[in-house]
């Protein structure tokens, strides 16, 4: 399947241009105002006057979903209304938990019979995908997935199956997760935090450092190559084995899933990792996948934002034009299971 559009909302802004700019500018410090350093998305980023009527009741989670999905659609130049059925697959680890907690606030403060129906309906995990389908007028299959291991990879698998089965010509496939005080508290207590705000993807540590992030990343995936094309997904492996040697391996190590020593074994080609730009997230694969898509399209390798490299592996250490045919995006979950997304020019 081909990548024909990308939309992204993250700490450095909105849109694929923001990611490209961040890749060119390199690392910047996260917000240090909360209990832990974190890459939060500003309210300004989530404001869009052209969509304000359609998403006036949407929470932050749904806004991140809608804005990234709409941008992916625009970037692809595919007209949803003309194309009819476009599938939507939204994957998340934690869902719209801020709204869930706000709803629980109502229960605790006002009692079971005096809660807000609007908060309840927005707290349901698939509310975000519903907003996306309503805003775009898309009436194809629409699925929301929630999982901690490989949320993006499983969404990609499903999108590929739908395209192959002919259920739709295009699938908007993406991930969203949000931060709030509860999540930051849980991260603070359960993860090792990088107090200087620097995720170090190439330390391969058994106790890596994290800086939690939030955001949304959506991709318009198409069965046929479209006018706008970033590259092609040619395989998704969960066996740890892949054929051929990639030009670049992008690893998802970001301190979020514990022991990262196994990543060391995936670094037999030139390696990159861009998690320091957007933060530690269980859905971080989607953001590295966006970076990989830009590399393939622009044939430009971006310098890793943090290059601490005690193992001396071969890193993308400068931004330079070069011929890139294949990128492997590798994620290792907490159980040690490996997933590889194989992308080609």
């Amino acid at each position, binding site marked *: 399947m081909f990548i024909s559009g990308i939309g992204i909302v993250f700490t450095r802004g909105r849109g694929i241009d923001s990611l490209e700019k961040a890749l060119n500018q390199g690392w910047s410090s996260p917000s240090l105002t909360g209990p832990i350093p974190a890459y939060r998305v500003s309210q300004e980023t989530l404001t869009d006057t052209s969509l304000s009527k359609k998403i006036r009741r949407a929470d932050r989670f749904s806004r991140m979903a809608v804005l990234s999905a709409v941008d992916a659609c625009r970037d692809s130049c595919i007209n949803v209304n003309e194309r009819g059925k476009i599938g939507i697959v939204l994957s998340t680890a934690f869902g719209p938990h801020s709204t869930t907690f706000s*709803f*629980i606030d109502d*229960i*605790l403060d006002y009692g079971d019979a005096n809660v807000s129906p609007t908060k*309840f309906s927005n707290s349901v*995990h698939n509310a975000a995908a*519903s907003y996306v389908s309503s805003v775009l007028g898309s009436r194809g299959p629409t*699925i929301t997935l929630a999982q901690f291991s490989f949320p993006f990879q499983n969404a990609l698998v499903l999108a590929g*199956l739908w395209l192959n089965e002919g259920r739709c010509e295009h699938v908007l496939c993406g991930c969203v997760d949000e931060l709030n005080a509860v999540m930051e508290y849980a991260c603070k207590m359960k993860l090792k935090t990088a107090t200087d705000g620097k995720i170090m993807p190439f330390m391969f540590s058994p106790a890596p450092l994290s800086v939690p992030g939030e955001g949304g990343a959506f991709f318009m995936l198409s069965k046929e190559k479209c006018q706008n094309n970033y590259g092609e997904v040619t395989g998704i492996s969960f066996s740890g084995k892949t054929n051929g040697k990639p030009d670049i391996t992008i690893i998802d190590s970001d301190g979020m899933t514990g022991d990262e020593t196994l990543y060391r074994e995936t670094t037999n080609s030139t390696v990159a990792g861009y998690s320091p730009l957007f933060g530690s997230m269980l859905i971080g694969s989607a953001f590295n996948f966006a970076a990989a898509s830009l590399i393939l399209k622009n044939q430009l390798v971006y310098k890793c934002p943090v290059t601490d490299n005690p193992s001396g592996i071969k890193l993308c250490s400068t931004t330079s034009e070069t011929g890139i045919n294949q990128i492997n995006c590798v994620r290792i979950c907490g159980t040690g299971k490996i997933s590889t997304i194989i992308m080609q020019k």
Partner: protein
Amino acid sequence: MKIVISGIGTVSAAGINLSENLDSLRHGKRNSGPVSVFSSCLSYPVFEVKYLPEKWKIDGMRTLSLALAATEEALNDAGLPKQLSEFKAGVCLGTTVASQLNDMDFYNSFRKSGSADLKPVDRFLRGNIAEAVAHTVKAIGPATTVVNACSSGTDAIGIALSWLKSGICNVAIAGGADELNRVPLCGFGSLGILSNSLCAPFDRNRAGLNLGEGAGILVLEREDFYIRRGGKPVLYLSGYGSAADAYHLTAPRPDGKGLESALRSALYDSGISPEEVCFVNAHGTGTIDNDKVEGSVLSRVFGENISFFSTKGYTGHTLGGAGGIEAAYTAAALKEGWIPASAGFACRDDEIPLTPVTENTDIKGSFAVSTSLAFGGNNAAIVIERA
């Protein structure tokens, strides 16, 4: 490649296994009562699972307990071992409650003091139902939890169908599970769609839904794999369709075009015409809007003589579990050749162009359909075939 339904497991207020469930349906038992699994001032009737095998009682993880109980029954029914590590097996399950970190005590403690015991967070992180069931049965293939609100179970079965057809796995555990929980009880209450009396799907005087809990699990296998291990197919999962309303967060699209599209897509996927369907197990929640839209669409797609019913009157609305439980009932009914009376129905609604079956009815035919409509405007349907 045809996909066999080789095992069925169900737990709900109607019974702790498929046999008990079917017995309740056959005899019109409606095991409802007030909420007892948590405290609430809300007095709506609910359908609770009153007994769970001790081995599957997991503290603070009731949805997972329900899912594991039904999974064990389904694996036994399929003649598969309790551990599937030697097979290419996947797990695709739907839920709503188990996907949310909604522990009241944890959150209340955090908001009061800025700190809280993290055991509920640990439970939540261990409790993603597809991942947890896959871990328990040692399934090494894909594991995906679907959170499409009330169509989650049906969508999970549809995703598993795609996995199996593509060869990603040979065996899949698919369906849905949800526990009765204070958050949805309060939420549905706030929306004004809970009935103070027992629900009456498609009835003129219907006044809303009753919440329930349970799990419905199908074991699905590629036919070649199933036959190779000595099975003789009786039931197939032959099609799945899904479509969005793109209309409203909680209300179904009045013209029903989303549901119609999902149904036609499922029929197309099965390669059959509407005339070949012998009955429909409808979503039929008992709310004014759902039943009106669904009844109209069923009439439009299948004609006014289609036999249909809702089983929400026996189980309550089990949310993410509903699609799994209703798929199990649909498969069992098709296999046994009878469908149950639609519990709660008494008076025809002039705004709904057809009426559900009012007594247990023998059926003849090879194909049956189960539908799900959900918050967010999701619509899903599956087609089950008798060999």
